[in-house]
């Protein structure tokens, strides 16, 4: 059975089309990442899959069930970390796990699960006193209680420090090696690249690219890219004296897509002729990051907001999630 199969899913809040015709399927044992800035529709979509939101249109099958109509049956078979996971202030992680185990009617070894998510040292600390990372780890631990075949992790590492993030990554890799199917949303590209088999990039309710990182780069990348360190003045000179699409990140890195080896020579010549300082000239393939910037016309900052780097680009990315 294909764990998740959706086609032409739509959901609007008033005039805002949060999810606008999304189709994909996720195979058994696959880790599938939905990547995009805030407001792209990731959470709405994942909540439709979890049975927490009603879709306006489209077909959705999760573990063979319609999530909205069969939520109660489905929820026994899936594990979920909702965005902004929260719990009862006056309960500690061990009690939380025992509570969930009783609700699901399963026997668990709470200590083992706590060790698995590296929370065993805080097993007796009340939820209100846990750090953001520890809270998120508890969310992950609770999603593991019912040994679900399919897990939904909605921004599992947002706002966490690098150590906490890496601990959660390890758990997700562990799930993958056990053959569990995982759908996660994130606005960290490196997270998606590190963890997932396939990535879907979402923007304005659409999936703008989907596949493995390589496939996406292949399909949407502009091939070879040349980078050179220098001043804004150099960037302007290169722009004026080559016919390449020269971009500067404002911090001394100038980059441009090149289609043939000769272009590199053109840039080198122009740089020398400018008489300006330059260093570190090299070429590389487009990264997922480059493709992402191209597709959503901006980079995502720590909080998931789009930071437009190309003044000519589309700045609609400021739209916030409901």
């Amino acid at each position: 059975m294909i764990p998740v199969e959706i086609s032409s899913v739509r959901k609007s809040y008033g005039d805002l089309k949060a999810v606008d015709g999304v189709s994909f399927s996720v195979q058994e044992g696959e880790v599938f990442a939905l990547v995009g800035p805030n407001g792209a529709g990731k959470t709405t979509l994942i909540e439709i899959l979890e049975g927490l939101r009603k879709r306006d249109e489209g077909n959705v099958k999760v573990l063979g069930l319609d999530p909205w109509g069969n939520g109660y049956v489905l929820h026994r078979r899936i594990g979920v970390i909702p965005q902004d996971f929260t719990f009862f202030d006056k309960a500690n992680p061990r009690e939380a796990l025992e509570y969930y185990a009783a609700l699901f009617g399963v026997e668990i070894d709470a200590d083992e699960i706590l060790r698995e998510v590296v929370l065993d040292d805080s097993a007796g600390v009340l939820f209100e006193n846990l750090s953001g990372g520890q809270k998120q780890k508890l969310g992950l631990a609770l999603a593991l209680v019912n040994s679900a075949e399919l897990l939904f992790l909605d921004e599992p590492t947002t706002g966490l420090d690098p150590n906490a993030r890496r601990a959660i990554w390890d758990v997700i890799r562990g799930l993958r090696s056990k053959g569990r199917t995982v759908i996660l949303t994130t606005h960290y590209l490196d997270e998606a690249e590190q963890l997932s088999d396939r990535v879907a990039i979402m923007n304005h309710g659409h999936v703008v690219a989907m596949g493995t990182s390589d496939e996406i780069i292949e399909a949407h990348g502009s091939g070879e890219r040349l980078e050179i360190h220098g001043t804004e003045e150099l960037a302007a000179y290169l722009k004026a004296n080559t016919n390449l699409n020269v971009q500067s990140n404002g911090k001394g890195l100038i980059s441009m897509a090149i289609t043939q080896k000769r272009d590199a020579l053109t840039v080198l010549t122009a740089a020398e002729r400018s008489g300006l300082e330059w260093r570190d000239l090299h070429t590389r393939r487009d990264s997922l990051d480059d493709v992402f910037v191209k597709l959503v016309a901006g980079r995502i900052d720590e909080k998931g907001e789009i930071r437009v780097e190309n003044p000519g680009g589309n700045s609609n990315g400021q739209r916030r999630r409901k």
Partner: protein
Amino acid sequence: MANARRIISDLRLFGRGYLRNAAGLFFGLIFPVILILIFGAIFSSGFSGTISLYYQNHDGGQISTSFLNTLNSTSMVKLVSVSDSENFSQYLSAHSASDGLIIPPDFSANYVAGQPVNVTLYGNPSQSSSSIVIGTVTGVINGFNLARYGGSAIIGISQTTANAQVTKYIDFLVPGLIGFSILVSPMFSLVNISSEYKRIKLFKQLSLTPLTKIEWLASKVLFYILLSATSFLLMTAVGVLVFGAHIVLSLWLIPFLVLGPMFFASLGMLVGTVSKSTETASVVGNIITFPMMFLSGTFFPISLMPTYLQYFAHVLPLFYIIDGLNGVMIYGNYAQAMIDLVVVAAITIIAFVAATRLFKWRED
């Protein structure tokens, strides 16, 4: 469909959280006991039933002494002697007293001689104590008048008590404050948590577990039944042991102690559910709760209130709970309690069903 294991584990988690929260414990258990101690202490002396009657005896004869002794033995008034040298009315106002009696000189001599003689009564007609004093003094005077001519009373009174006990204020206060705690804890708590859990999306999360919303509400209802039972025991113990309240304990109390918290937990849930924000919920909750807190017979019997407020009290759900508790605990009036119980059961079922229907785990 409800599953006892899930209800119990939710009850355990919630109860543990409650016990770890000092504010909850205070308002749930300690505050009602403090109220009983305060109100019991304030009114236990003032309602003793004896009125201080200040007197000056200008006579000094045997008859006046015997007259005063008879008056004292009615136990309706407590006689306080004022020295002859004092200006009587100044003395009364200096002691914030309005009831006084002056026995004139030659009282005894005139009595023996059969000459008319008047005692002077001071009183404030606007105070109920004055009419009690007039009645008591008149009664004693009639007795002395009859005795003077060797007569005996033709019409007498044979007394029976209407209630097993003379009801004292504390007897009203205990059921009233039990009603108060049945109202306050579940109502405020459910208004708060149902709107707060909605805000922080905790309900949404719980909807991802097999816990159903009926099970969730059932566990809250169970918790507040246990809490009410505990505070019932505490308040009854304080009422009886500290203030000597006369209270009947009967199995009839159980349905009120079960349905009461169930009703207010459901009502609180309903308010929290239909309100858009935590702030609105708390305002609506207060609007519903405060009139009930004072006008349902909590701190004083509603018979002391003006008629229109008594009518108003009859639309307050808490009235029927306290009326029922009074019926059982004070009067042993089970017929009245039965009517109250039917009303309480009906509104409880309506509130519980409405709360579980309108309450949504998840949004569309």
